[in-house]
């Protein structure tokens, strides 16, 4: 299905269009990250309707738009967004592969201090994996940490 010309259309209206017209895509990818040393690992799970939008293209704004809104929100006198038009008027991004979509999602929904230098410490602070690589049960969920010995074919959090 061809995406309508959405630049200038309210982002929420685009999401409603996508929900009506696109098949949700449940991704197997998970992003595991640690942002505080005394807390367990966090898991970022993509939304199936959002992933459908990312794969379709022409719907989502560039990720930099979210950074601009976050800058506004970080101001001490912030009351409400006055640059919401950036979400609606900026040219939407083209179709992404699932892997590119995960990278976009990391830059949108993970803390910047995590992904900007995720690989600069003694061990990675962030890992992209498949859900099968996470522990099978949540029994010890609050003790999950990124494994010290990473390998692409092994469980990454235990």
């Amino acid at each position: 299905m061809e995406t309508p010309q959405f630049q200038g259309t309210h982002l929420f209206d685009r999401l409603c269009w996508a929900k009506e017209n696109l098949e949700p895509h449940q991704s197997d990818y998970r992003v595991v990250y640690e942002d505080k040393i005394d807390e367990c690992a966090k898991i970022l799970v993509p939304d199936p309707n959002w992933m459908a939008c990312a794969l379709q293209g022409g719907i989502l704004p560039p990720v930099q738009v979210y950074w601009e809104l976050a800058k506004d929100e970080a101001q001490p006198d912030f009351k409400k967004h006055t640059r919401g038009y950036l979400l609606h008027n900026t040219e939407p991004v083209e179709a992404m592969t699932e892997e590119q979509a995960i990278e976009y999602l990391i830059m949108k929904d993970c803390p910047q201090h995590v992904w900007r230098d995720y690989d600069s410490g003694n061990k990675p602070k962030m890992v992209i994996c498949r859900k099968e690589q996470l522990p099978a049960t949540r029994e010890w969920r609050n003790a999950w940490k990124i494994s010290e010995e990473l390998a692409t074919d092994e469980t990454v959090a235990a």
Partner: protein
Amino acid sequence: MALGKIKADTLEHSTAGTVDTQFVVDGSAKARGQHAAGTLQSGSLNHSSITDHATGSFSHNFTNSFANILYSHVGSATYNQGSSSALWTYMREDGSAGDTATGSIKVTSAYILSSQNRTDYDFAFVDLICFGDLA
């Protein structure tokens, strides 16, 4: 463009009166998410992802941010058959405003027993619906 549009300020019923369409817009949910331990179900709306922080602790991340942090949220958790829980809930974590941003909201699923204070818990399914003005 493929999007059809009807522009109207008022809807009028033949006998039951009129309603301002602004009420319809304001009264519609702007985000909806049902998830099972972090995995969003396909009926979600305006979500980009869920962050699974720990047992019973999740953030809902929105695609279209809200205009401010004063949006309303309503959460629910499934009831476990045979459970002796007095109360089960899925609400903003500790009522802390710092965990609510225009683009995300951090929530906790927990149960409370008559003999015991709150215990964070991963229910089979939890739901969150948000109302408010979008950016």
